[in-house]
């Protein structure tokens, strides 16, 4: 700590500005040489596409290229607001995000609390391992598993429904169930993994606090309520804020693998729309405009929520 503040002071007291840029570079050229390939990589592959964003303001034709295509200003953005499909995908994206948020945000916290209450360590470990597993599978695999599991003729749930005298439900292809299915499959995939971060924060609680609470006569429920839960509140607040900034970030990989014609109306989201218009229909400029519109809103929201989170707590992504 002491050393760190010392070196900070050095930086203030002895600015090497006199020697300037060239001096700094040559003095640390070892390090800059190690950085250079990475910086070039970021410049080409992460900043390069930003130049390509200009096609959102053009009528892009592949033969003419970016420099030769005609500039049309905000034409595609105006088209976007009158496009009926855009309204639909925007609404779907927000609704699905909110559903997922309502279910998938509290679920891992509840799981962490219950796992924490399991006293048998072996059982606890096995259960944790099982719950993390789906996180490591791709959405292609998970969608294949779920199409089988939720199948109207063979799936366990539908066999139970049929035995109870109900009609089988085609969960994957029925528009009424599609959004719920998206929420529950992503819960299936991510609940265990999501609980790790809360478990680690619970593990940081001083055991003496539990003992003190027990001596004061607090039962297990009250210990959970007054000791365990408060220990995750700061983390929970941050996660809540950061998550709310991601409301437009839909899961392309999930939705694309589940989406079929009958569920388009309720399941088509921004990223699948961008893919369809851009790659399949070759409507590059319009697709880029949609994507840019979403990215700008998303960027502003993430930065804003990040700043709020930082202010509330010193913990932050940056």
């Amino acid at each position, binding site marked *: 700590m002491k050393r760190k503040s010392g070196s900070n002071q050095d930086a203030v007291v002895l600015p090497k500005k006199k020697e300037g840029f060239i001096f700094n570079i040559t003095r640390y050229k070892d390090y800059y040489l190690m950085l250079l390939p990475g910086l070039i990589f970021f410049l080409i592959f992460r900043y390069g596409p930003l130049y390509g964003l200009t096609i959102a303001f053009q009528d892009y034709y592949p033969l003419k290229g970016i420099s030769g295509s005609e500039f049309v200003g905000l034409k595609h953005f105006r088209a976007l607001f009158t496009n009926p499909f855009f309204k639909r995908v925007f609404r779907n994206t927000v609704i699905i995000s909110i559903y997922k948020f309502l279910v998938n945000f509290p679920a891992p916290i509840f799981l962490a609390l219950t796992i924490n209450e399991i006293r048998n360590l072996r059982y606890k470990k096995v259960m944790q391992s099982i719950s993390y597993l789906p996180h490591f599978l791709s959405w292609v695999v998970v969608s294949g598993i779920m199409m089988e599991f939720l199948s109207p003729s*063979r799936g366990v749930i539908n066999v139970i429904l049929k035995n109870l005298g109900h009609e089988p439900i085609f969960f994957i292809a029925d528009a009424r169930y599609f959004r719920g299915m998206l929420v529950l499959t992503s819960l299936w995939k991510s609940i265990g993994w999501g609980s790790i971060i809360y478990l680690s924060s619970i593990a940081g609680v001083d055991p003496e606090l539990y003992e003190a609470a027990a001596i004061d006569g607090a039962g297990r429920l009250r210990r959970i309520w007054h000791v365990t839960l408060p220990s995750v509140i700061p983390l929970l607040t941050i996660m809540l804020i950061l998550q709310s900034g991601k409301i437009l970030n839909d899961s392309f990989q999930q939705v694309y693998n589940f989406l079929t014609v009958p569920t388009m109306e309720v399941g088509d989201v921004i990223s699948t729309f961008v893919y369809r218009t851009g790659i399949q229909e070759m409507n590059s400029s319009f697709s880029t405009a949609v994507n840019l519109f979403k990215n700008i809103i998303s960027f502003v929201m993430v930065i804003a929520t990040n700043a709020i989170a930082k202010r509330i707590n010193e913990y932050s992504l940056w």
Partner: protein
Amino acid sequence: MVKTKDNKEKSRKIKKSGEDYLVDIIAYAFVTILAVTIILPFLQVITISVSPSSVVNAYGFHLYPKQFDFSGYKRIVSDKLFWHSYLITILRTVIGTSLAVFCTAVMAYPLSIQKLPYRSGIMKFIVFTMYFSGGLIPTYLLIRGIGLYNNFLVYIIPSIISAYNLIIIRNYYMSVPRSLEESAEIDGATGMQVLIKIMIPLSKPVLATVALWVAVGHWNSWQDNMIYVTNKKLFVSQYVLQMILKSGQTQDMEMTTDVVVHTETMKMAALVLTMIPIVCVYPFVQKYFVKGIMMGSLKG
């Protein structure tokens, strides 16, 4: 008097243990039900993949195999496209992971040195890319423009350094005590020598974690294939699996009964083969992933 006191104490104890039981029941029940919910779909998939068509078509639960028939696996094994894609996936995972870890480890090192001028500016330059990207089409045009379209390298190069992994590794370097490094520098070692001889051996845990993340990412990746590759010789297994799964669907709709049966077992056989490396390796490497999450929550 004494008796009532005893009674009181007893009743308090009973109340307490009642609450204990309640918490235990809820905790064990919830966690167990969750685990069963996660395992059941796997059981069904595996059962279908090894069952003969008569069983697949029969009504009822399919949670354990009653009869064995490996024709689904046989057909998948004889499918050249599937095996070739499997090979491509292994190749991209091995090459992609080693290159990614090496490049990220090298680039992270200078950024962990606090006295390096312009360090925070460079960090901002990198972190920005985590929050704003050009999006699908501009990236597509770039990939086509620099000749990576229909090229194996499209699986390796565009994802070689991720800002997130870079920050994780850099943070770990920063937590390593500087004294060793400084003495090496005084002895005249260059930055690269310090990195290879001191920092990388000291950072094995974080490098292993990042390597596993990247490897799983490569194994599971299919979007780059779908967007940038049309040459079947370069397809990856996840993409081929997706094609197999989707082709089954359309056949379902066309009601070509005989094919459906085979396709169903074939689909599940392909699915099992695609996920089996992850499921097998997973129990042994799981703790590294969990460690990684903790590292990720370190402040940047």
